[in-house]
């Protein structure tokens, strides 16, 4: 009944383990991948007003122009990217959709797409959906999980079409520096590749690090598809709203797929997000709150026997090394849940180079972090 292609694509993560956790009543979960704040009140109110005013019909395939204009302004001011709101910005149903569209718009069957790993789980399947070959580029703890340009270079062949980067990174929290991006850009320009840059965690950055958009670098304007959205900075996950920005040829191609598969992003979410970029204070309060919990979790993890964890610079994940436990990451996650009821995500969920690590989210309350650390200490002492 099911097509061979789809049958061959695995589910994300260990399905039966995740379902067990999902159903568990008293689990202390560090497995969450979304903000633990509610959507800011002004955006909720704007959503309600959108419904009341009957802004509930289809919108332009590209998304409402007013929102595209605001996104264009934001991209210019914050990211140094200049895009025409009329033809170079596409509003999508979350970054997830934008990513799928970007890959399908540019990948021919048999093309290689480089993916620095550990990486978000949908990059690889999106390439498969497009009949391309995902080529992992492992990153290492020694390099703070920042992808090294020589590792990319080594894997570039005639078949290489694109590279998908994400900074700040889920699951490692790594933030690429300007120099990293410049090195990648040199390769991309030299080999005439395309970069798909997933910047959904851009606002969540700490320790004075800065977010740079590779699309703003010289010569990268037409070789970059910049993806971003509202989910992480504005606690907007369930509204499903993202966007893509790139040259008009690529954006038009993406719009073609979007037109047939999604038609348009949810109208209510689009209207609700119009004033999102004005909420500077809400965002900085959230970032500060994550920052405090980040220190609590990472320093706590480092005080546990046989666990070490580098300080992540962005997103809301810590990616501790658990090799000294003698278990692989899946065994570790299962045992930790079974023995002390703490849920974490095995690192290999995000690619082979995540083996030996687990992802712990600090988008949870301080009490949850403290409770989890206490339980993890008991667990580490017992093994």
């Amino acid at each position, binding site marked *: 009944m099911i097509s061979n292609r789809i049958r061959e694509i695995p589910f994300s993560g260990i399905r039966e383990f995740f379902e067990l956790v*999902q159903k568990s009543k008293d689990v202390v979960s560090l497995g969450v991948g*979304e903000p633990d704040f509610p959507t800011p009140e002004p955006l909720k109110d704007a959503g309600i007003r959108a419904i009341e005013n009957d802004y509930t019909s289809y919108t332009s395939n590209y998304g409402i122009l007013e929102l595209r204009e605001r996104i264009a302004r934001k991209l210019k001011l914050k990211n140094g990217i200049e895009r025409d709101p009329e033809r170079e910005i596409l509003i999508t149903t979350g970054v997830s959709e934008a990513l799928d569209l970007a890959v399908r718009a540019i990948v021919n069957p048999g093309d290689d797409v480089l993916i620095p790993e550990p990486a978000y789980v949908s990059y690889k399947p999106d390439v498969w959906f497009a009949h391309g070959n995902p080529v992992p580029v492992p990153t290492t703890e020694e390099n703070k999980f920042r992808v090294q340009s020589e590792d990319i270079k080594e894997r570039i062949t005639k078949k290489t079409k694109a590279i998908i980067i994400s900074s700040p990174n889920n699951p490692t929290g790594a933030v690429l520096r300007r120099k990293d991006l410049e090195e990648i850009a040199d390769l991309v320009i030299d080999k005439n590749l395309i970069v798909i840059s997933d910047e959904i965690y851009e606002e969540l950055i700490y320790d004075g690090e800065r977010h740079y958009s590779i699309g703003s670098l010289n010569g990268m304007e037409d070789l970059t598809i910049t993806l971003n959205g509202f989910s992480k900075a504005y606690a907007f996950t369930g509204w499903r709203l993202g966007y893509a920005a790139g040259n008009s040829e690529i954006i038009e191609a993406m719009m073609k797929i979007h037109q047939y598969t999604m038609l348009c992003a949810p109208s209510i979410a689009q209207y609700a997000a119009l004033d999102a970029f004005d909420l500077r204070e809400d965002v900085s309060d959230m970032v500060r709150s994550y920052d405090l919990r980040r*220190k609590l979790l990472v320093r*706590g993890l480092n005080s546990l026997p046989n666990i070490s964890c580098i300080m992540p610079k962005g997103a809301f994940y810590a990616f501790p090394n658990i090799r000294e436990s003698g278990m692989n990451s899946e065994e570790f996650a299962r045992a930790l849940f079974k023995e002390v009821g703490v849920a974490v995500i095995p690192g290999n969920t995000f690619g082979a180079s995540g083996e030996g690590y687990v992802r712990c989210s600090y988008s949870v309350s*301080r009490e949850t972090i403290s409770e989890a650390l206490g339980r993890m200490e008991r667990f580490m002492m017992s093994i």
Partner: protein
Amino acid sequence: MSKKDIDNEILKLLENDARISLSEMSTMLDIDEEEIKNRIDRLKKTGIIRKFGTSINWKKAGEHRVLSVIQVKVVPQQRAGFSKICKEISKDSRVKDLFVATGEYDLILLVEATDIDEISKFVTEKLAPKREVVGTYTHIVLEEYKRDGVISFDDGVGRLKISI
């Protein structure tokens, strides 16, 4: 960070949970425990921290208390204005909050008592006899949905325990 900013960071953490440990605060704020302790002592001494208390759902604990919102109309007194009567009323242990506000009534009180009779006594014996008081309007609280910034109900809405 300026001195005041650090104090406010400490206050925000304590406002959310007065039981947060010094070591947790020290880890989160990058300040040593001794300094945090000194700052908290000073904040307490200067009255910026009013008290360390606990927000309790007494109904769940099986103890019934009656909460009322009482509006009071007052004739301001020469020289003292509202302050004399406000101070007097504040001393009553049943008065949990007292505000001077705009509107038809001048004072708004939150009064907690063991039963309605006690509220009645408070109004008739404490408030009404006062010379300055020219009117009261008592609201008995029927149900509580949010108190001290905490919702008192479980709406069953939650995030997924696992999401990637």
